[in-house]
């Protein structure tokens, strides 16, 4: 949930234009995995700024803490130890909402205005409109939204839409001590990421690249990966995420086809009644029983 906004591009379950008089530049958060040291300052900053507090969990014998995203932890560091051609590598990925240009959550959401997309590219939940059905979880290609047990609303990273709206960078980018998280216009971030890829290649990471998946129209959180050919090794980052045919059918063709079919049945029944008339007992049979009396 963010500030009242004049620059909404899309609202969930709404077919008319959204308030979009003001146009803003497309923004992006760049997460350079090669620079991340796994300090979790971003997790702390996220909780501080958004004033959410997760329950104290248990140690599972790994660095991941909390073990997964929750309604209070909108970003988590995911640690994976992977054998590559360079030997053992410790790959640490900051996980959270990717802010897709074509968001599966917004497509799936049935509540008008519960999910919005700003013209700067941020995808935000407006929880006061959320009905708690969890369809956004079903629609998300990255498994991000979390349903709160306390209030049955969904929560996720807002890309600090409230900070961005007043010209600040997201809390995680502000706090990152190594510069692994940077924030700016999408154009600038792509340019910066390209420089990082050139640098990584010169250091022997031949497959270094940018993760900005086309299947969801690109994202407003992008990664620089040392092994961009194998995103799955980064704790299951999907190779080619998309909204997918099932969600596409469910929230696409099914809706108009169903309404038209039901309308056709209604109209067809009416026309049938008007043209053929009611199905009554025939005169011969009526007469037969009349005579009996």
């Amino acid at each position, binding site marked *: 949930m963010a500030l009242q906004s004049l620059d909404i591009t899309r609202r969930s379950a709404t077919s008319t234009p959204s308030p979009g008089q003001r146009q803003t530049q497309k923004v992006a958060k760049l997460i350079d995995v090669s620079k991340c040291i796994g300090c979790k300052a971003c997790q702390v900053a996220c909780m501080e700024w958004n004033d959410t507090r997760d329950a104290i969990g248990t140690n599972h014998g790994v660095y991941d803490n909390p073990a997964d995203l929750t309604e209070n932890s909108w970003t988590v560091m995911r640690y994976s130890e992977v054998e590559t051609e360079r030997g053992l590598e410790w790959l640490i990925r900051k996980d959270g909402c990717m802010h897709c240009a074509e968001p599966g959550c917004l497509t799936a959401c049935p509540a008008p205005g519960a999910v919005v997309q700003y013209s700067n590219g941020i995808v935000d939940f407006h929880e006061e409109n959320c009905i708690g059905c969890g369809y956004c*979880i079903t629609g998300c290609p990255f498994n991000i939204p979390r349903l709160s047990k306390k209030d049955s609303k969904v929560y996720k990273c807002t890309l600090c839409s409230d900070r961005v709206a007043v010209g600040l960078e997201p809390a995680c980018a502000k706090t990152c001590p190594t510069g692994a998280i940077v924030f700016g216009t999408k154009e600038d971030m792509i340019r910066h990421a390209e420089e990082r890829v050139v640098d990584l290649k010169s250091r022997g990471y031949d497959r270094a690249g940018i993760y900005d998946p086309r299947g969801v129209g690109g994202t407003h959180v992008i990664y620089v990966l040392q092994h961009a050919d194998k995103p799955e090794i980064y704790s299951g980052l999907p190779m080619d995420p998309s909204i997918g045919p*099932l969600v596409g059918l469910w929230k696409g063709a099914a809706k108009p086809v169903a309404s038209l079919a039901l309308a056709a049945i209604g109209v067809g029944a009416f026309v049938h009644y008007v043209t053929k008339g009611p199905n009554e007992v025939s005169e011969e049979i009526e007469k037969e029983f009349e005579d009996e009396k």
Partner: protein
Amino acid sequence: MKNDSRTLLRFTVPERVNHWLVALTFFLLALSGLVYFQPLYFPLSQLFGGGTWARILHPFFGVAMIFLFGGMFFRFRKLSIMTPSDKEWLHHIRDIANGDERNLPEAGKLNGGQKLMFWSLVTCMVLLILSGIVVWRAYFSFLFPVVVVRLAAVVHSVAGVVMIALIMGHIYIGIWTRESIGAMLYGRVRRAWAKQHHPAWYREMTGGDK
């Protein structure tokens, strides 16, 4: 309808009560379900106290439906077994719609169309129950992988729309065939009506005369 020798008992009291409870539950389910099928119908959520209430109530209406429709299933399943004569009846569907019943095989207590309706509803109901459990986010969805939930969402939507279409047809045929709504409301039908629409049942009930 007078309870005299000139009328025939078509549906018993428990059958009628069960039918109308299913009908009521169907309307609650269809109206609350359409809310999150398509934004066009979102205003229907006001009937239930808003979108969140529609979301909370819909699956509980579904649980009620499992028991109520289950009752209908056990009451009518034997009556609804398709016979070769029913299949022959269904081949004449075009003539029937045109009001031409000349070469029609004699229908029993339920005709081929009613039996086909019964089994279509049973099929939709089974699909709706199974997929409904998977998409019930508050209690069950977390037990299933996301791809199963997506598939269930599609199945639930399609089966729900087919169900609404079938019931629209069912209601129309009830209106079109005069006196049949009375049969479900009051239980009894005129002999002439029975002979017209369900001749084999008529003979069975009256001991073969006429």
